[in-house]
C-alpha cells in the first residue's frame, strides 16, 4: 500500500471516531443526570471533604455540673474554652443534671465539680474532678480528652498562688477522673456498626424503590398494569411492601452480626429499635418512590440515589463526627433522614434511650415521612396520567 492510501485510511478512521465522539458528547449534554454528575458531584465532594469533614472536631459542647459553687468554676470554664476543643454549653448545679444532658446528646462532655471542691483544693487534699465523656464515637472524643487534663491543671496552677502555690509544686492539684460513657474501651466498631444499619438500609431501600417504578415505565409494563383493574395506589403499595420485608430482613442480619460478631452492647429496648427502624425504612421507601417519579429512566434514578447516598454517608455522623462539621453542614445533615436515624440507633443501642428520649428524632422522621408520601403520591399521579 502506498503512503497516500495509508494516510487517507487513517483520515477516515479519525473522521469516524470524531463522529462517534460528537454523538457521545451530544447525548451526554442532553442527559440531565450526566450533566449533574459532571458539575455537582465534584463540587459536592469538595465542599464536604474540604470544609465539612473534620476528624479533629473542636468546640464540642460541654456542661459543667457545679455542685460546689466556687470561683474555680470560672477559671475551669475559661481554661476549657481556651483549648478550643470545648464550648461550655451550660453550667448546671443540680446533681445528676449533667448525666441527663449527656444521655440526651445535648452535650458531649460533663465536668462535675464535687461539693467541697474548693475547700479540699485549698487544703491540698487533691479533690476529685470528674470528667464524663460520651465516647460512643471515639474519634470525636479522643483528642479533646487528651487536652482536658493539661488545661485544668494549668488553670488551677494559675489560681493557686502565694501560700497555696506549694499545692501545685509536685503533682497535679486535683485528681482528674475520666469516665468514658457508652463505649468505655473506645472500640470504633461499637459506633460504626449501629451506623452501618442506617447506611445499609438507606442504600438498598432508596435505590431499589427508585428503580422499581422507573423500570416499569421504561419497559412499558406500567401501561399494561394500569390498563388492568389495578389502581395506581395499589401498584404503589404492592411495590413498596416487598421492600419493607426486605428492610426488616436486613435489619435482622445487621443486628445479629452486631451482637454475635462485633459484640456491640445493646442497652436499650429492642421493640423500640424495631419500631424506629420500620419508620426509617418507610421514609427511605417514600424517598425512593419520589425519585422514581422524577427520573425518566433507570440510569437517572440510579444517579439520583447516588446524590442522596453521598451526603448521607459523609454528613450524617456515620463516617465523621457530626459535631466536627461547620454549622451549614450540620444544617444540611439535619435534613437527611439518615442523620436522625443514626442518632436513634446509637441512642437506643449504646445509651439505652427510652421512648421519651427517642421521641424528638422519631418525630422528625415522622414529619419527613408525611412530607415525602405527599410528594410521592402527587408526582406519581402526574407520571401516570
Amino acid at each position, binding site marked *: 500500500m502506498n503512503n497516500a492510501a495509508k494516510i487517507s485510511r487513517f483520515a477516515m478512521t479519525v473522521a469516524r471516531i470524531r463522529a462517534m465522539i460528537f454523538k457521545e458528547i451530544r447525548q451526554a449534554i442532553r442527559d440531565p443526570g450526566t450533566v449533574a454528575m459532571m458539575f455537582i458531584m465534584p463540587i459536592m465532594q469538595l465542599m464536604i471533604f474540604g470544609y465539612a469533614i473534620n476528624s479533629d472536631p473542636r468546640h464540642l459542647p460541654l456542661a459543667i455540673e457545679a455542685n460546689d459553687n466556687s470561683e474555680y468554676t470560672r477559671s475551669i470554664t475559661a481554661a476549657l474554652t481556651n483549648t478550643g476543643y470545648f464550648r461550655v454549653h451550660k453550667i448546671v448545679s443540680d446533681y445528676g443534671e449533667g448525666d441527663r444532658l449527656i444521655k440526651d446528646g445535648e452535650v458531649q462532655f460533663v465536668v462535675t465539680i464535687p461539693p467541697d471542691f474548693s475547700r479540699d483544693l485549698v487544703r491540698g487534699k487533691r479533690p476529685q474532678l470528674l470528667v464524663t465523656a460520651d465516647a460512643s464515637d471515639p474519634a470525636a472524643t479522643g483528642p479533646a480528652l487528651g487536652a482536658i487534663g493539661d488545661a485544668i491543671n494549668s488553670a488551677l496552677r494559675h489560681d493557686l498562688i502565694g501560700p497555696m502555690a506549694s499545692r501545685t509544686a509536685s503533682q497535679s492539684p486535683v485528681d482528674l477522673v475520666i469516665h468514658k460513657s457508652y463505649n468505655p474501651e473506645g472500640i470504633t466498631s461499637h459506633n460504626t456498626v449501629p451506623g452501618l444499619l442506617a447506611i445499609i438500609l438507606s442504600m438498598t431501600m432508596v435505590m431499589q424503590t427508585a428503580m422499581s417504578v422507573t423500570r416499569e415505565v421504561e*419497559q412499558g409494563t406500567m*401501561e399494561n398494569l*394500569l*390498563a*388492568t383493574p389495578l389502581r395506581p395506589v395499589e401498584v404503589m403499595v404492592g411495590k413498596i411492601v416487598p421492600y419493607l420485608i426486605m428492610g426488616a430482613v436486613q435489619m435482622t442480619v445487621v443486628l445479629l452480626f452486631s451482637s454475635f460478631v462485633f459484640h456491640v452492647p445493646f442497652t436499650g429496648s429492642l421493640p423500640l429499635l424495631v419500631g424506629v427502624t420500620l419508620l426509617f425504612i418507610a421514609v427511605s421507601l417514600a424517598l425512593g418512590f419520589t425519585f422514581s417519579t422524577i427520573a425518566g429512566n433507570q440510569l437517572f434514578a440510579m444517579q439520583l440515589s447516588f446524590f442522596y447516598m453521598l451526603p448521607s454517608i459523609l454528613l450524617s455522623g456515620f463516617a465523621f463526627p457530626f459535631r466536627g462539621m461547620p454549622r451549614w453542614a450540620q444544617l444540611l445533615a439535619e435534613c437527611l433522614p439518615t442523620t436522625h436515624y443514626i442518632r436513634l440507633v446509637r441512642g437506643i443501642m449504646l445509651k439505652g434511650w427510652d421512648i421519651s428520649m427517642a421521641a424528638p428524632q422519631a418525630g422528625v422522621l415522622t414529619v419527613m415521612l408525611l412530607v415525602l408520601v405527599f410528594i410521592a403520591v402527587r408526582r406519581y399521579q402526574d407520571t401516570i396520567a
Partner: protein
Amino acid sequence: MSEAPAIAVRGLTKRFGGRTVVDHVDLIVQPGRICGFLGPNGSGKTTTLRMICGLIIPDEGEGEVLGLNLRSRRNAIKGQIGYMTQKFGLFGDLTIRENLQFIGRVYGLDRLESRVDAALEKLGLASRADQMAGKLSGGWKQRLALAAAVLHEPRILLLDEPTAGVDPQARRDFWDQIHGLARDGMTVLVSTHYMDEAERCHEIAYIAYGVMLARGTTAEVIAASGLHALQGEGPGADRLAAEIEGRPGVAMAAPFGTTLHVCGLDPEALREAVRPWDDRVRWHETAPTLEDVFINLMRTAEDNSVISA
C-alpha cells in the same frame, strides 16, 4: 341495529402541553364488530385507545363504553376491556405461566389454574409454559400478549399495532384468532399500518393529525374518497412517477413493480394528464386502493394543517 353500541364516544379531545393530539373524535363501534383504526404515525391513534380504555382522561368529550360513562366509570370499564399495548407489556423475567397467573389474579378470576391451562393450550405454549417471557420471539410474545389481554374474557378488545414486526404466517394466525373472538361476540378496535389488515376489518376509521377523516367499510371509504385510478403498463412506466405526479389533475402517482398507478379526483383530467406517454404506455382504469385513499387523505390533511398553522 337494536343493540347499544359497545363503544360510543363524541368529541374526544386530548392536549399535551398545548398541542392537540386528538381533536374532537367521534367513534361508534357496534358489538361483535372489528374496527380497524388507521392513520399515520403520531396521528393520535394510541391516545384515542388510551382514552377509551380509561388510562387517560380526555380534556373534552363524552362517551360510553359498554354503556358505562367514560369519565365516571373508568375502573368499571377497565375490568371489561382487554388492552394490548404497542410495546410488549408483560414481564420478561417471569415465565409464560407466571405472567398469565399474575394477570388472572389482577382481574380476580375464579378457576385461575384451569383458565391459565386452557389459555396455554390454545396458544400452543403448554410445553413452553415455564420459559421466560423475555426469551420469546416477536411472534410468540405477541401471541402471549393477546392471550393475557383476553384471559378475563373482556367484551371489548383494544389492540395497538399488534402485528408490528411479526412475520406473515403469524399475522394470519393472529387475525384468524381475532375473527374467532369477534364471532363469539367480542368487539375489537385495532390500530394498524397495514392495508391488508385494514381490509380484514368489518369497518375502518382513519385519523390523521388528531382528526377523524374517514369512516365506514372499505368499499364505503373508497367510494367516498371520489378518487379514480389508472394503471399504466409499458417499458419504463414505473419510472414516470415523479414526472406525472406534478401534472394538473394527478393527486398521486406511485410505481407498483413494473407498472405505474396514478390517481386523481377528476377522471377526464387524469386521462388528459397521462396522455403524453400514450405512445409507450397502455393505460387502463382500475379501482383505487385503500392505500391510495389514505395517502390522499393524509396529504390533504397535511396541507390543511400547514395552512392552519
